Structure formats: structure tokens, C-alpha cells
């Protein structure tokens, strides 16, 4: 047997060979940077200057830094509000799209548009929509007589927070809706027929049939949604750059500002790494959500 034939018959050798391109790239550009990021967080590295080990100094400094604390609050607030709103609206939209109607396929296709276009570009459109002087929303509200002067959407801290949340929700609702719709379509109509014969109201059907059967996929979809929202960067970078008065700075945008614009790589890396515990929480949440899926479908508890 030649070497080539021996290789072909060994699953381990062949498996390793097939895995090589993907593994090499991921190890070098994903695993290594991840480790490097953790290490950088413990050093005082600046752009163009190798740093020395400073232990927890970066984290101690950031803990005392009011902007960093504000960015943590903003990130949690942004994630919590945007995720809840995306879930409620997304579920509602999914239920609507699951009804029988004309042009169903077409409507579903255009619903996903906000999700597929580049976020940075749709964010520019929102920037213009939220313009202090020429906002179309202010114009419409003025014409309806609901307000008497133009709203300063991005100039006032709380207005700005809710404005960027609105833009995030706009982009995220289609993702939640379309994935939950796929879950809804796997629920057999016979459950609804059976519950209707037993006299269930539409609300009871939703509460006791739809929701329990949808829970596993909700858990996964919301984990992804939380993950994307928590680490969001582009929307904030484009619409407010963290302003006004750092009111919309998220941890991701602050780490960019400190590390890339400011050159303090170590400090920026520490901010990014501080996001990891939250992400791990989200992943564990997904894991237990998936576990529940197994027994709900009649599988054994793992």
C-alpha cells in the first residue's frame, strides 16, 4: 500500500487533512487573538509600544472611571430594552405573518429587508431621520399638532438612548420574526383544533399551546439577539459616536475609542474582555434552552 492509500483509509489522518484549512485559519485569527486580547487586558500596551504586565491595573482604573461605568450601564440598558421590545414586536409580527393572506411569500420577503442591508448604511438613514433640524418625525408630529417644536433626538441623553434603541429594534425585529415564524410553522394545527373544541379562547391557545411549544426556539433566538445587541458597535458608531456626553457609549464603542482612536490598546482590550462574562451568561442560557427542547420533543433528558 502506498502512503496515499494508507492516508485515504485512515479516517483520523484524512479528517485532519480536511479540517486543516479551516482549523489553521481559526486558530491563527480567532483563538490566538482571543488569548492575546486577554493578555493585552493585563498590560499597558499602547499603539507602537509593547507593554508590560500590570496585573489588574486596567480593570481597577476602569472600575473607577465614570465613563466606563456609564458605558456598562448604557450597554445593559440598551440590551435589556431593545431585546424585550424586539421579542414582543418580533413575536407579534411572526404571529401575523403566520396567518393566511394574499401575497404571503412576498410580504415575508420584504419584511427581512432591514436585516439584510448593511447596518452602517441603514444607520445613516436613521441619522438623517433623527436630524435635529429636518427630522421627518418632528415634521409629521408638528403637522399633527402633537408637538410645538422640533425634537432634539440625538442631542439630549435620554432622547439619544431611545433613538438608537429604536434603530436597533428596527433592524432586529425582522430577524426575530422570521426565525420565530419558522418555529410557529412546525406547530401542528391539530393542537389548535383540539383546544378550540375544548373551548379555549384565542388568548388561552396562545398562552397554553403556542408559547410552550415555541419556548425552545425563543430561548435560542433571544440568546442570539442578546449576543448581537450586547456587542453592537456600528449603529452607535454611525449615529452618535457615543455622544451626547457619552450617553450612548456602549462597551464596544468605548473600547474602540480608547484602543484605536486613543491608542491605549491594553485599556481597550480590558473593556472588551469585560464583556465576556455577560456573553458566557447568554451562551449558558442558550444551552439550557436547548436542553429543554429535548424533553419537550419526547427525547430523554440529557
Amino acid at each position, binding site marked *: 500500500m502506498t502512503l496515499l492509500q494508507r492516508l*485515504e483509509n485512515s479516517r*483520523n489522518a*484524512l*479528517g*485532519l487533512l*480536511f*479540517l486543516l*484549512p*479551516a482549523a489553521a485559519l*481559526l486558530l491563527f*485569527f*480567532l483563538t490566538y487573538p*482571543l488569548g*492575546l*486580547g486577554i493578555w*493585552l487586558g493585563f498590560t499597558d500596551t499602547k499603539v507602537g509600544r509593547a507593554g508590560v504586565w500590570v496585573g489588574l491595573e486596567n480593570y481597577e482604573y476602569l472600575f473607577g472611571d465614570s465613563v466606563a461605568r456609564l458605558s456598562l450601564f448604557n450597554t445593559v440598558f440598551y440590551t435589556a430594552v431593545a431585546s424585550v421590545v424586539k421579542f414582543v414586536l418580533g413575536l*407579534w*409580527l411572526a404571529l401575523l405573518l*403566520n*396567518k*393566511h*393572506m394574499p401575497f404571503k*411569500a412576498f410580504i415575508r*420577503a*420584504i419584511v*427581512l*429587508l*432591514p436585516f*439584510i*442591508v*448593511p447596518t*452602517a448604511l*441603514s444607520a*445613516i*438613514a436613521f441619522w438623517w*431621520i433623527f436630524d435635529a433640524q429636518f427630522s421627518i418625525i418632528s415634521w409629521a408630529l408638528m403637522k399633527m399638532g402633537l408637538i410645538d417644536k422640533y425634537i432634539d433626538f440625538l442631542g439630549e441623553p435620554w432622547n439619544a438612548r431611545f433613538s438608537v434603541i429604536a434603530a436597533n429594534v*428596527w433592524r432586529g*425585529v425582522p430577524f426575530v420574526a422570521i*426565525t420565530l415564524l*419558522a418555529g*410557529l*410553522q412546525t406547530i401542528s*394545527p391539530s393542537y389548535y383544533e383540539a383546544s*378550540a373544541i375544548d373551548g379555549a379562547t384565542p388568548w388561552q391557545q396562545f398562552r397554553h399551546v403556542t408559547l410552550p411549544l415555541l419556548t425552545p*426556539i425563543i430561548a435560542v*433566538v433571544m440568546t442570539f439577539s442578546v*449576543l*448581537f445587541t450586547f*456587542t453592537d458597535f*456600528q449603529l452607535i*458608531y454611525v449615529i452618535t459616536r457615543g455622544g451626547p456626553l457619552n450617553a450612548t457609549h456602549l462597551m*464596544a464603542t468605548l*473600547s474602540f475609542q480608547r484602543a*484605536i482612536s486613543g491608542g491605549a*490598546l491594553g485599556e481597550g482590550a480590558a473593556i*472588551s*474582555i469585560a464583556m*465576556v462574562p455577560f*456573553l458566557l451568561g447568554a*451562551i449558558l442560557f442558550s444551552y439550557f434552552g436547548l436542553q429543554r427542547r429535548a424533553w419537550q420533543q419526547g427525547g430523554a433528558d440529557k
Partner: protein
Amino acid sequence: MSQSGNDAVGMDFLESTPRKLVTVYLPLTAFLFVLLFPFYWMAITSFKPNKELLSRDGNPFWIIEPTLAHVNKLLFQTAYPQWMWNTVLVSVVATFFSLAASVLAAYAIERLRFSGAKQTGLAIFLAYLVPPSILFIPLASVVFQLGLFDTRLALILTYPTFLIPFCTWLLMGYFRTIPFELEECALIDGANRWQILVKIVLPLAVPGLISAGIFAFTLSWNEFIYALTFVSSSEIKTLPVGVVTELVEGDVYHWGSLMAGALFGSLPVAFIYSFFVEYYVSGLTGAVKE
């Protein structure tokens, strides 16, 4: 989404038309209005003369004197065509490379079942969950040390860090649905693993390949933070980064050309998406459902 259609009909006949109007069509219209309005606004701003843009009188929802001035400025006075070309180049190359690497990896994990295949599959899933916003700082330092800073190659090499985990995960699901018997038959007939992959598995996995390819292409097209960090010269920038960083000059916002830039940057992905809606949706839901 393959069974989209009749399974939801069920008891719809019980709902009367007026009732359905209030509970279904009215909220749905509101949703569609909000979801589509920013696109309408992008389009109408692109062709509106500055005189009308910067005025609070008249009806802002319509254009009285449409103009091509903004588009003209965008195409001939900025590096916009170059950014478009960079984005196409980077997205296509990164997508093809990632797809090829992912096919091999997914086949190895799902079908060769080498020892440790299960753990590798899990590792791929975890890699998929690592967000670019915690990787970009150390990656910037890696890119710099390799001397790739400010090159398209930097983007082509770093985009696969999120494309490969996604494509591999998706393709593993597709390969799982292909019966083992087909491969066994081919093995008995004397085919080697490479022939099995190319002549049996891949033709059967074409829908999965299209889903993964379309999704990967849109992900690369939309990528922002790596392109913003690893590139600084105007002629290397990708489209989203170019529009955001170069079209804004000080405090003067050229809303017309900004919106035209956003519109034409969104159209290619929207166009490709319109041809492959079903594949895209199955990629999206497949990645979440597995």
C-alpha cells in the same frame, strides 16, 4: 420554510373579514410601513435638490424637482466606485475561500467521524458565538505584525473568522440529512473519499451551499468593525466604511449624497437576496434551529 403554505390555514375560516382587518391587516400594514419607510426616505432624499432638503415648507414626502446632482457627486467626485469594487472583491474572495474550507471541515466532522469530531463540532459552534467587537483589538495587532495593515488581504483573511464557523455549522446540518447508504455504495464501487465528496455529497448539498454562500456574502458585505479598524487609505476602504467616514465633511452634511451612497450600497445585497429569499431564510433559520 419548506412547508410554508397550507399548514397554517387550519381554522382561519372561523375569522370574519372585518375582524381580520383589525387584528391582522391593520397591524401588519403598520409594521410594513415602519420597516420600509427608511428605504423610501433614503431613495427620496437621494434625488431631492438641497433647496427642498433644507426647507421645512412643502411636502417632504415628495420631490418637486428631482435631481441627479447627488448621484453625480457620489460617482464622480468621491472614491465610491472604488469602495464598491473593494467590497465586491473582498466579499467574493472571502466567501469562496470560507465556503471551500467549510465544506471540507463539515464533511470531516459529520462524515469522516475522526476521533474528536464531536468536540470539534462544538468548538466550531462556540467560535460562531465569538463576536467581532471583542476580537478587533488583538486582531488589529496581529494584522499589524503581519504587515497586512491597510490591505484588502487583511480583510480577506479576517472575514473567514466569522464566515467559516457559520458556514461549517450550517453545512454540517445539510450533510447530516444525506443518507450514509449512498456513500457506502460509492465506497463499494471503489470511489475514494474525495470522489464521494465531489460527486455524491456536494451535488446533494447544493441548496445548503447556496444558503451558506448567500449568507456569507451578505455578512461580508455588511461587515464594518474590521474594515474600519484594519484599513485607513480611502482607496482600500469598503463601501459601508467609506460612506460613513469619507462622505461626512466636518459639520456640513451632504445628506443627498450620503443617502444615495447608502441606497446604492444596499441595492446589490437586496438584489441578490431577492433571487434567493428561500435559501437565505433557510440559512438564517437553519443556523438558529440546529
